């Protein structure tokens, strides 16, 4: 099973270059090849998910070339990482499968590299290893955003590039400082030495890491590039960017934060940042005419919510964050794919005219995506929302919960404006890419079925006995009890 962990990362890495070369002649070959690779990747990650969930202590450690952790680099997968892995590969395969045939081999190669980087990031247990994969991720996203080479995507890519490079430099400085202090690069060892750091050192490193990961994760002051990049990218890429790339960056930052910076003050700062991100992006998102930009703002908003949920030290906050992540990935992926393809077909991204050619499946997809994004009761989003509020109130942050209310309502309004316009349109509904229809139906099916699975598995609401948590199993083993039927 350890071999699968490595395979999940290495396979798309190699396939990326192979599919580029294969596609030089005609891009059908590269598309088929990429689809096969991503499908195997999805199957592998599902196998890993099954294995980790079934295993006793819910974790696998894959060691490279025989060197044991302190020196060698290792891949570490606990239950939360495995969930991210599964859904990352699902979204990667879905967005590729729904991509139009006209995309060139460059696109397929980059998508494969992006998946490789994502898998690597989720699994790596070594801090410099994280930096390397993070760089691959940034570089590939710059390239994908600039795919169309038109004025709009170039401008977005330039801004993304400059901010991204500054962030990676900050990150490297942070890592250098950590290495100077602890002398090791393995996450677990650094975590053990973290408590002895001085206040100043902790603040500096926290700041550097916050900027490093924050730009990619879309936290408030640093997410300016996000609202230009997502609309400029082709719709499968923006689905990937919104669905998983920013979430992985957030997950990484919170993983490191929960290991190194356990003082309550840091989680308070993050809570505040999350609230501000959510508030600003909803307020500005309310006025967007451009449909994809509107969805980008909603993604930044959801990131704010996830940041608040994950930064709460309690187990229920963690679970709320997870539910919000899964819900956002499915709903936003579905929305971006449907809305993106509709606006490409009708050639205009304005909210009144984008849905002229909406087919029946587009309408169903947008409705399902919109409703589950807003947390309409039967969906997971609803469970996430309820748990988030319960977690906030239980952790004593009643004021934060009250501040959330007006902005959630704002989001409901502008998302329903989008859904309303799609349903109201009387488009001719010709279907351009069959793959996309399949993906839309599958995602809608998952959105409807998943709440039943999750609710049966772990959240009988009247048996929700929420107790505190201890640091040891905070990140490593916790999610497994949580999803394996232990009542949280």
């Amino acid at each position, binding site marked *: 099973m350890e071999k699968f962990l490595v395979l999940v990362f290495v396979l798309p890495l190699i396939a990326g270059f192979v599919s580029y070369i294969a596609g030089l002649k005609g891009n059908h070959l590269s598309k088929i090849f990429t689809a096969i690779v991503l499908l195997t990747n999805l199957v592998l990650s599902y196998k890993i998910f099954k294995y980790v969930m079934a295993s006793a202590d819910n974790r696998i450690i894959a060691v490279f070339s025989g060197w044991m952790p302190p020196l060698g680099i290792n891949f570490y997968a606990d239950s939360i990482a495995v969930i991210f892995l599964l859904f990352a590969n699902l979204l990667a395969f879905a967005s590729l499968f729904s991509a139009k045939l006209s995309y060139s081999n460059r696109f397929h190669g980059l998508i494969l590299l992006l998946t490789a980087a994502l898998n690597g990031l989720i699994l790596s247990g070594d801090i410099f290893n994280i930096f390397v994969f993070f760089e691959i991720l940034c570089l590939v996203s710059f390239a994908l955003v600039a795919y169309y080479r038109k004025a709009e995507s170039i401008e977005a890519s330039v801004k993304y590039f400059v901010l991204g490079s500054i962030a990676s430099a900050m990150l490297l400085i942070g890592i250098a400082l950590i290495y100077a202090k602890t002398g090791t690069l393995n996450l677990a060892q650094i975590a053990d030495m973290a408590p002895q750091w001085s206040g100043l050192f902790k*603040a500096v490193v926290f700041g550097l890491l*916050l900027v490093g990961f924050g730009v990619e994760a879309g936290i408030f002051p640093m997410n300016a590039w996000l609202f230009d990049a997502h609309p400029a990218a082709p719709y499968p890429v923006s689905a990937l960017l919104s669905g998983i790339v920013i979430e992985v960056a957030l997950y990484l930052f919170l993983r490191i934060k929960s290991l190194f910076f356990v003082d309550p003050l840091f989680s308070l700062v993050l809570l505040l940042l999350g609230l501000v991100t959510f508030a600003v992006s909803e307020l500005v998102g309310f006025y967007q005419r451009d449909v994809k930009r509107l969805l980008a703002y909603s993604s930044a908003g959801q990131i704010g919510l996830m940041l608040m949920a994950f930064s709460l030290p309690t187990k229920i906050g963690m679970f709320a964050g997870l539910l919000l992540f899964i819900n956002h990935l499915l709903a936003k992926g579905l929305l971006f794919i449907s809305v993106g393809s509709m606006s490409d077909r009708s050639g205009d991204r304005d909210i009144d005219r984008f849905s002229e050619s909406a087919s029946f499946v587009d309408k169903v997809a947008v409705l399902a995506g919109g409703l589950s994004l807003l947390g309409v009761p039967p969906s997971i989003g609803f469970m996430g929302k309820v748990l988030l509020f319960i977690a906030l109130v239980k952790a004593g942050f009643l004021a934060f919960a009250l501040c959330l209310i007006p902005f959630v309502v704002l989001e409901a309004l502008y998302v329903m404006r989008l859904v309303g316009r799609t349903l109201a349109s009387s488009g001719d509904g010709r279907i351009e890419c069959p793959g996309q229809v399949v993906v839309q139906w599958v995602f809608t099916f998952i959105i409807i079925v998943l709440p039943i699975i999750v609710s049966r598995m772990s959240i009988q609401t009247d048996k929700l006995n929420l107790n505190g948590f201890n640091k040891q199993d905070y990140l490593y083993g916790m999610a497994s009890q949580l999803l394996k039927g232990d009542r949280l």
Partner: protein
Amino acid sequence: MMLLDMIKADNLAFFFSVLTIGFFVANTIFLIFSGIKKGIVLNTILSLFLTMVLLMLYATHNIVIFFALWEMATWLTYLLANNPKKSSKYLWASLLAEFFMLIAVARTVAYGSYDIAMVAHVDPLNLIMFCLPFIVKSGILPFNFWVTDLYTGSDKRFVAYLSAIIGKLGIFGILRVFLLSPGLIPEWFIYTFIYLAGITAVWATFKAVGSEDAIESLSFSSLSQVAFIFASVLLMNKSALIGGLVHYLNHMLIKMGMFMAVVYIWAKTGTTEFKRLGDFVSKMPFSFLFFLMLGISLAGVPPMGGVISKWFMYEGFIEESKLLAVLLFFVAGVGSFLYVYRLLHSIFLGRKKPSIGLVSEMNILAILPLAASALISFLIGVYSRPFIRFAAKALGMDFSEPRTDIGFAYIGIVSAVFGALILFAVVLWLLLPKHRYVPDTEGYTAAAYLPKDIQHWDYSYNFYAPVVRLGDKFVRLFSLDWLARFWKEYIAAIGELFRGIYSGSLKLYGFYLMSVIVLVLFLKEMLK
């Protein structure tokens, strides 16, 4: 099955479930057989789903499930109304309130229990936050801005369900919470919302009197009745509670029947405006008869059931000696005469307008629900003991308790004497010299020559102009349009301010990055 024994377990849930199921069945029968073709299947499926949600909502005692079902009902109403532009005010108003309910739920969960009864034990503010959606859903004053849009804009097939059941969900909510937490309700909360409900009732009556559209008039009438029931339920006085529940039943029957007739006419003629309808009695005599019976019941005139429930509610208010509040509801009650007569006169009895095409009486199956509701309402008027016992059981009171059972038996006598007198009048009318029926063109024209286009010679537009002119300032003040405009500009200004953050210049974005690091260094000071 599981749901049925869940409903039976709780008397209050049983009362509301029986009513909701009864309404749904009758409404669906009407919609199917009334010849309205397009969009029926989706509407029926969604309203079936909504009914299931409501049945579960009535039965549950767990606050998290209660909140989930309540929000599902809100969203289903939004979808069923299928007019996103008009129902957006409803959506954001109820979502705003529901999030306050969510906070109340979260605080109760933090307090340690999931039972509705415990909501009030946390603290009075928690109870009020939990009850906020009930107030919003009933359209009581600060939250009556969404009512105009949703009722007039919603899909005609759903408007009956909306006003008979969904508009009154708040009443069930208040009953569920207040009956489970006696004595913990803050006094000032009851006082403010009784008077607010009173003002809402008068405001809604003026709106109904002044409206030029049948659906709008009926919707505002149901808003004023709901406000009345809401206040009498809030009062927590025995006879007011019984009156409230019986009036809930009465109002549901009345609105179901009246909306069916109006929706049928809309399906046939495509319009529900008073000035374009008229003289339907010649073609639809039976539906007029039932419509008349229901109208009389709505106005609260004795032979029909309306008077029983209104009388109990007034009795409750007088017992609690809240004269000022009951005065407001009396005015709303008298106002109901005006719009009931307007409905009868402009739709069924006026002069036939050219725009109305061939309209035939509803087929037998479609008129069945209308007839049933009229007859049940008549039964309440004549022999109301079983209905009152049904309501009392729902509230967990045995029937003999209300002090005023002398009064209500007396209303039965009134109906009996009235029947005898009607008989005497008819017999006398038959004995007197014969009379002959004439077409409407033979009318008295005060010696003026009859105009050629006789059908325009009818007074059914701007019917109550003087009263509408008088109440205009009052109505405009409380319809809160000025508040909506101010709020829209305020949000626009804030939005403009925040849009400036992402002004597109790379330098600014770079500056944001650096500011974060400075912020964190500042954090170090706080850390020490």
